[in-house]
């Protein structure tokens, strides 16, 4: 860990908040993508089943 001196709180806060936001964004895209793909699979299966 580098010595951030008197600005340790500011620098750590900036990095943690930013990485947290990017992580949350990636997670949201992944979860939504998975959910929509599953729903579409169900609809297509139902459609194929009905002929």
């Amino acid at each position, binding site marked *: 860990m580098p010595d951030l001196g008197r600005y340790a709180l*500011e620098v750590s806060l900036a*990095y943690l908040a930013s990485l947290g936001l990017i992580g*949350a964004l990636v997670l949201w*895209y992944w979860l939504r993508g998975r959910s*929509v793909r599953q729903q*579409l699979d169900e609809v297509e299966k*139902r459609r194929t089943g009905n002929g």
Partner: protein
Amino acid sequence: MASLWEYANPLKFMRTTDWLLPVVAVAAVVVTTIGLVWGFFFTPDDFRQGATVKIVFIHVPAAMMAINAWVMMLVASLVWLIRRHHVSALAAKAAAPIGLVMTLIGLITGAVWGQPMWGTWWAWDPRLTSFLILFLFYLGYIALWSAIDDPDTGADLTAVLCLVGSVFAVLSRYAALFWNQGLHQGASLSVAPGTRMDWAYKAPLYICMVGFGLIFVTLVLAGTRTEIRARRMKALVARERMA
């Protein structure tokens, strides 16, 4: 060589992004990690800013992507309005949450840097204010998409909002030049001779900028794929109901 317009075909887009998405995603993780680790652990403190200079490796790439995301949405919206390609409208929709988060990161890291350097978290400076308005435009754009049920009407109206909001995307980039006032300095990086930043900072910053660009491309591709699937599902459900 394949024409760009071929990717307006959802099937072609899905097939291409099947292999392209993992490649871009891995590149995004690798490049961003290298840039941030280099910037955070291996750059010296600035003689005036101290360790807060390390915030630049997140602030500048995020602010750059906040503006570039809107520019990409503008181009995609124009393609939709002129050529009516659904994939372009869906790509613009997929890009908006990324732009919103990048704008928020720019605002937060700017405030955290501004407190020790300027002595204030916030000032009604032209660049900061236009960035805040850009953030509000992103919120409005996302809200408008979710408020309209018909996808084509939603694409039309959000495209018009995107055209209007472009004024603030441009202002966010050039406000510090238009109005020679306020706290925010000019561009951190410049191609002009006598540029301000030393290569000890510039090299990791360029890498972070490429990394953030790759994160944007990864999420836009992933988001567009999801929107294409959601649109197909909506069409199939509507067809089922009519049968």
